[in-house]
């Protein structure tokens, strides 16, 4: 370092100069923006994680279902045997399209066989019935199909002639089961139980294999001990352990709010000021909803939902200023060398120091009307698509907003009030709701729910005279419990 460098260093190293007032305002605006960006980023990360979890669970379901279908499809290669003559009467109807037939031997009654008496020979067949009530597939009665009834299970012959015949049924007194014939659209999943015996799983369908896990649930019941043709429609998710057509959900969600402001008429400046002064804070929603099973895989839900959107309103009065005290150290130079320093107190005039910070709250109460379709399920989990509407029945706003008339802070008020600024409608109308719902079956009656959702407001929530359109789109993840009864 030469002499010139030293002189420059001594003169300029601790030199301080004036700073234009608007630099802090620009920094503050950028900081506000970057703070706002943090939440969407966090939300994006959690959404990606959730999507990953949903896809993983979905693939698991899909794999299991596909394997079952693949196994069953092997049986489609065979020609079904149709035999409309000498068909035994069904002892029980399992569903609209499936019936179970039995023939007792040794002159034992059906009831005595099914009640587990000593009879060991039993002809059992499964017959599928098409929509016109004609039998499509029947067991060939000419064959002497033998079945063995042990203490708690009924074992049918390894292989029957019909492609759709179920060759082995395990029965016991404690479980309820299903038979899955899902090789084509007419083959719904039939489920049934009996006072004495309940089918728990099927080992084989002809030459194919069906995993027992896909068959261990039930939705409809029929009593094998009654020899009648009573049919009962299959309802609900077929994978429930026991058919229950009513449910109650309770849930909570941390929400990300996407606020949309658009200029309706000359509101550009107001929009700019509102964006600068309002920033999102933690928001949430919670609710209670009742569900009813209306058909196979279909449920409807309704109840009540409470949502609270929180925002921070921060306004700096540009005309205000404040004197702030700063203690500084000054250096004294002689011939370019620091010879002394003085610590002194200085007063600095800071412009725009008067700040107003208000925490705004937007509370809404809605009635959800939702339909739920069970896409995939097994005995542990189920995945459903949920869609519908939220109808707003009440809304309440509290806080401060930039006035559309004066562009100064003013209290939010409801229509009809003399003071403040009325911005929002009393009734916010209807929102569209969509979600993917994963239910983990904790117990026979209780599910744990994880439901990522989106709630979109199709119309503006501001009154007609307000210069801006405003919508709140909400994205969240409901975490809740479902109790079935």
């Amino acid at each position: 370092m030469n002499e010139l460098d030293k002189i420059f260093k001594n003169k300029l190293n601790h030199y301080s100069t004036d700073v234009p007032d608007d630099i802090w305002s620009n920094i503050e605006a950028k900081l506000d923006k970057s703070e706002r960006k943090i939440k969407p980023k966090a939300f994006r990360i959690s959404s990606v994680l959730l999507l990953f979890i949903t896809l993983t669970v979905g693939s698991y379901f899909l794999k299991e279902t596909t394997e079952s279908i693949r196994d069953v499809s092997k049986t489609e290669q065979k020609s079904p045997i149709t035999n409309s003559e000498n068909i035994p009467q069904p002892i029980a109807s399992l569903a609209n399209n499936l019936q179970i037939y039995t023939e007792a031997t040794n002159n034992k009654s059906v009831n005595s066989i099914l009640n587990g008496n000593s009879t060991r020979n039993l002809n059992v067949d499964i017959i599928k019935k098409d929509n016109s009530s004609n039998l499509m597939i029947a067991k060939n009665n000419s064959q002497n199909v033998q079945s063995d009834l042990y203490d708690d299970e009924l074992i049918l012959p390894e292989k029957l002639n019909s492609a759709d015949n179920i060759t082995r049924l395990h029965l016991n007194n404690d479980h309820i089961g299903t038979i899955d014939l899902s090789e084509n659209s007419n083959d719904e999943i039939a489920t049934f139980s009996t006072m004495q015996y309940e089918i728990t799983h099927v080992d084989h369908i002809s030459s194919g294999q069906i995993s027992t896990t896909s068959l261990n649930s039930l939705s409809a019941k029929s009593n094998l001990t009654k020899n009648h043709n009573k049919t009962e429609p299959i309802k609900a998710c077929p994978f429930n352990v026991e058919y229950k057509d009513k449910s109650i959900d309770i849930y909570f969600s941390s929400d990300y709010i996407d606020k949309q402001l658009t200029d309706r008429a000359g509101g550009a400046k107001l929009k700019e000021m509102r964006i600068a002064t309002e920033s999102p804070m933690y928001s949430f929603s919670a609710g209670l909803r009742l569900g009813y099973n209306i058909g196979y895989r279909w449920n409807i839900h309704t109840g009540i939902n409470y949502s609270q959107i929180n925002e921070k309103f921060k306004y700096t009065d540009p005309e205000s200023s404040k004197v702030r005290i700063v203690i500084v150290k000054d250096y004294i130079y002689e011939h370019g060398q620091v010879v002394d320093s003085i610590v002194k107190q200085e007063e600095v005039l800071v412009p725009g120091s008067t700040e107003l910070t208000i925490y705004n709250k937007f509370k809404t109460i809605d009635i959800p009307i939702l339909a739920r379709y069970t896409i995939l399920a097994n005995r542990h989990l189920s995945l459903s698509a949920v869609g519908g509407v939220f109808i707003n029945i009440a809304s309440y706003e509290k806080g401060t907003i930039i006035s559309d008339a004066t562009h100064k802070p003013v209290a939010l008020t409801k229509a009809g009030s003399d003071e403040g600024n009325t911005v929002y409608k009393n009734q916010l109308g209807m929102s569209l709701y969509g979600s993917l719902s994963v239910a983990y079956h904790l117990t026979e009656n209780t599910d744990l729910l994880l439901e990522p959702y989106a709630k979109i407001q199709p119309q503006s929530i501001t009154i007609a005279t307000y210069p801006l359109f405003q919508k709140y789109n909400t994205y969240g993840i409901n975490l809740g419990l479902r109790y079935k009864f």
Partner: protein
Amino acid sequence: MSPLIVNGRTEKEILKACLKGDRQAQKDLFYLYSGKMMAVCRRFARNQQEAEDMLQDGFIKVYTNLQDFNNQGSFEGWVRRIIVNTAIKHTKKKSFSNENSGLDYIPENSIDPDVLSALSESELIKIISELPDGYRAIFNLFAIEGYSHKEIAELLNIEEGSSRSQLAKARRILQAKVNELYTIAV
């Protein structure tokens, strides 16, 4: 030296509050150091507007990286490094290695220290800001900020030799300008 106190809060207390997002503390921090940092930016920038942009971007980085300050050294020094790096990035788009001022053959005359002492800080800043971009950055980094040629070479992605030669050229230009100013003044 007395601790810096702003509105009853020490620097450490202000920093803690800044980390919690306290806007008033961020403002206090800005007004505490912005004067000195503006002077740094003025030296690195070609004009006032560029200096303001550097200061603004530099302070945003200070706030967003505040959690990385480990309280080991001087906070002012940490802020200053961020400001200097920001200033360098602003001018880095230019090539530092191939600048030619056209003043390569100015003889390196000695300057009377009294002449330089007679010049105000703003006059010195003005003559620095008139240097070509690369010369200005290298002179600021070496002479005032105390960086070595090796550090400058790494920072600006140039050869050490290039840093040395450009510094020499910068000095010659500055001497010429100081002499010119002194001549006019007297």
